[in-house]
């Protein structure tokens, strides 16, 4: 029994933290946040250059050959630094091809995705339906018709993995005719969304889609949870720092027990989430029986904690916390994204109840 990350994994996190610190300090995050596309090709390139385009893609396909746990550790660091961009959708597109694609599809797409020569994303949600594979309704038969909602960077991606009826997955190249995207006015400007409509666009099924789509979703739940832990820890840290510097009544506000206890309450919520995320990722990699249910519980818990922690952090910052200028609002918006993307906590708690035989 050894419940800890390895030295290599600590090193991986240190590398990503340093990279994020250098290439994407909060001042840069803010520029991208306020910018038009929510994407910085230079920043993305620097992430891809250290292998973050294909962390969990096998080496034979040009990836780093690591596990979901490693990818989740990366997501935690990006979440903590609020790094903007297409990491989430791109990672999930790669995993979808890996889990569900034919040899040929893997050979054709994985190296390009891993190297960052192509940008991938996933299209799951549908209007009036849900995010889960059994809720998808689009029919694909060589061509695809219908609309998907909330597709991360749908307008920038080269490849979209689209969820179809019966939990299937198909590949659509956006360069093809009949693919149109319309930007969503989303809260989280570090992770932009599009509604993407397909009007007879040609598509190619991933053969194992119906068997693998649940796993792709679970990977997504875990990456969102890892992001949420990183973001929650950062929101707490910002609040603690503020409490040590802001003065009122002649002392720093951290002297007030109400603030101290509020921060302590935040800390006991946030700190344990780190280990839940580790376990969920470990179960995904090695404990098949527990993988799906743990991912559901973890997503519900981690993203709820992030949301509440971000709210509390705004409150601790007072008036400045309520402004667009304050960096906490960026984390707050990321919390909104993590909470709702792939289904709100309620959805996953109910799934956990069903999977637990309750």
């Amino acid at each position, binding site marked *: *029994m*050894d*419940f*800890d*990350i*390895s030295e290599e994994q600590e090193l991986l996190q240190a590398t990503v933290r340093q990279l994020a610190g250098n290439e994407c300090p909060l001042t840069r995050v803010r520029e991208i946040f306020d910018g038009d596309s929510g994407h910085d090709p230079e920043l993305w390139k620097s992430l891809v250059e250290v292998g973050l385009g294909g962390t969990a893609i096998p080496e034979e396909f040009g990836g780093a050959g690591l596990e979901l*746990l490693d990818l989740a550790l990366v997501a935690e660091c990006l979440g903590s630094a609020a790094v903007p961009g297409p990491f989430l959708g791109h990672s999930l597109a790669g995993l979808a091809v890996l889990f569900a694609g034919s040899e040929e599809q893997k050979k054709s797409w994985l190296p390009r995705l891993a190297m960052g020569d192509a940008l991938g994303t996933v299209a799951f949600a549908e209007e009036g339906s849900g995010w889960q594979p059994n809720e998808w309704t689009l029919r694909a038969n060589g061509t695809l018709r219908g609309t998907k909602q909330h597709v991360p960077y749908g307008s920038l991606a080269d490849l979209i993995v689209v969820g179809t009826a019966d939990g299937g997955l198909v590949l659509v190249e956006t360069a093809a005719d009949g693919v149109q995207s319309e930007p969503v006015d989303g809260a989280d400007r570090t992770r932009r969304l599009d509604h993407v409509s397909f009007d007879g666009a040609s598509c190619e099924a991933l053969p194992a889609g119906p068997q693998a789509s649940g796993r792709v979703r679970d990977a997504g739940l875990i990456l969102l949870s890892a992001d949420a832990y990183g973001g929650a820890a950062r929101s707490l840290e910002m609040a*603690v720092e503020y*409490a*040590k510097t802001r003065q009122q009544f002649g*002392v*720093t506000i*951290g*002297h007030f*027990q109400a*603030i*101290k*206890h509020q*921060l*302590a*309450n935040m*800390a*006991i919520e946030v*700190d*344990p*989430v*780190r*280990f*839940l995320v*580790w*376990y969920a990722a*470990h179960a995904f990699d090695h*404990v098949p029986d527990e993988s799906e249910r*743990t991912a559901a*519980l*973890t997503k*519900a*818990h981690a993203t*709820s904690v992030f949301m509440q922690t971000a709210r509390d952090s705004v409150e601790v910052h007072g008036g400045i916390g309520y402004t667009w200028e304050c960096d906490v609002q960026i984390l707050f918006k990321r919390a909104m994204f993590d909470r709702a993307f792939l289904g709100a906590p*309620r959805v996953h*708690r*109910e799934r*956990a*109840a069903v999977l*637990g035989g*309750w």
Partner: protein
Amino acid sequence: MDLSYGEAYEAFRKEVQAFLAENWPPRAEAAELPRKDQVDRFRDRAVDAGYLARSIPRKYGGSEQPPDALRASVIGEEFRKLRAPMDPVGLGVGLLVPTLLERGTDWQKEKFIRPTLRGHIRWCQGYSEPGSGSDLASLQTKGELAGDEWVINGQKIWTSGAQIADYCFCLVRTEPEQPKHAGISYMLIDMHQPGVEVRPLRQMTGHSGFNEVFFTDARTPKDWIVGERGEGWLVSRTTLKHERSGLMNVGQATGQLPALVKLARRSLRDGRPAVEDPEVRQKLAEIEGYMKANEYALYYRATRGRKGRDAGRIQLMAKLIRSEITQEVAKLAMELIGDDGLLAGGGELGMRERPSDNRGWVSSYMGSLGGAIAAGSSNIQRNVIGERGLGLPRDWAAQRSK
């Protein structure tokens, strides 16, 4: 990361099972012995085999095993299956023994540790006083040296188990001229003497687990002090450290869930099992999220502990988290039992017990508050986490009161 017990531990489990098959429940002539002798005999053998008193040196009656949380939990699992005697539960083994090991003299260790481990002597903790709870260092019970003996006068309160204790480990002001923290000594006191009077207090559960203890010219030998004179505060901090970690135990955090789910299955809402009610399902899954997060935090602590590496501020949080979760569980249970929420509680639950009927859940509804107050109230825990964990400034009040 590897969460399996692994082959070595499974082999160890077989060993423990074989030991138990031979020794518990007692057979043949051992089965004829009085219960106390059966337990003694069994504990002696279990210590010899390295299964009990694992952190205690052999010369004081322990089995002196290297720390290994996994072996400990294998032993716990197997012993519990057969209801075999474990190390006695309580303040003696949990608090006093570790403190003696760290700060006691050789003769103190010789005299007290072995019988405490065997359950032959029982202890109570005389810290709180009517005027000194969270601000414990303001305590007033005084000890004066008269020849070879300390003469003790004063009152303790909320003293759990004083009615059955043989001895008390007690904080007593022996250096009244010193500032408050520096004037206290950690004293061992025989409870069976004329100067000690124990009056039971009735708890809100209806039971009398804690007491008032009055010392009127009670006596204890001069050298029954642990640590130096006036060092009692520091010595007691060693004890509290053990108290906080003693309260946590991998598995205890999630252990409450199956009982709660069971309750939800057998309770009705609108004529259907409550476990089918969407609100109940949400709440159960929410609680499970908290429990799981903390279960894995404990695994992490155990792993770091075994490697001799610091686990960081999460160590300060176990007590508060546990009381919060336990209260959430109790509150949901109260929702589930419906009109049985009108009933009186069904008796005090031990640390390792789970409620088995609705009156048991009423008890845990009340008992979960005891946990939030005893051994450092939740607000005091928040101070500790805020100050030592997050590096925030100390409270003015605490700074000013010297």
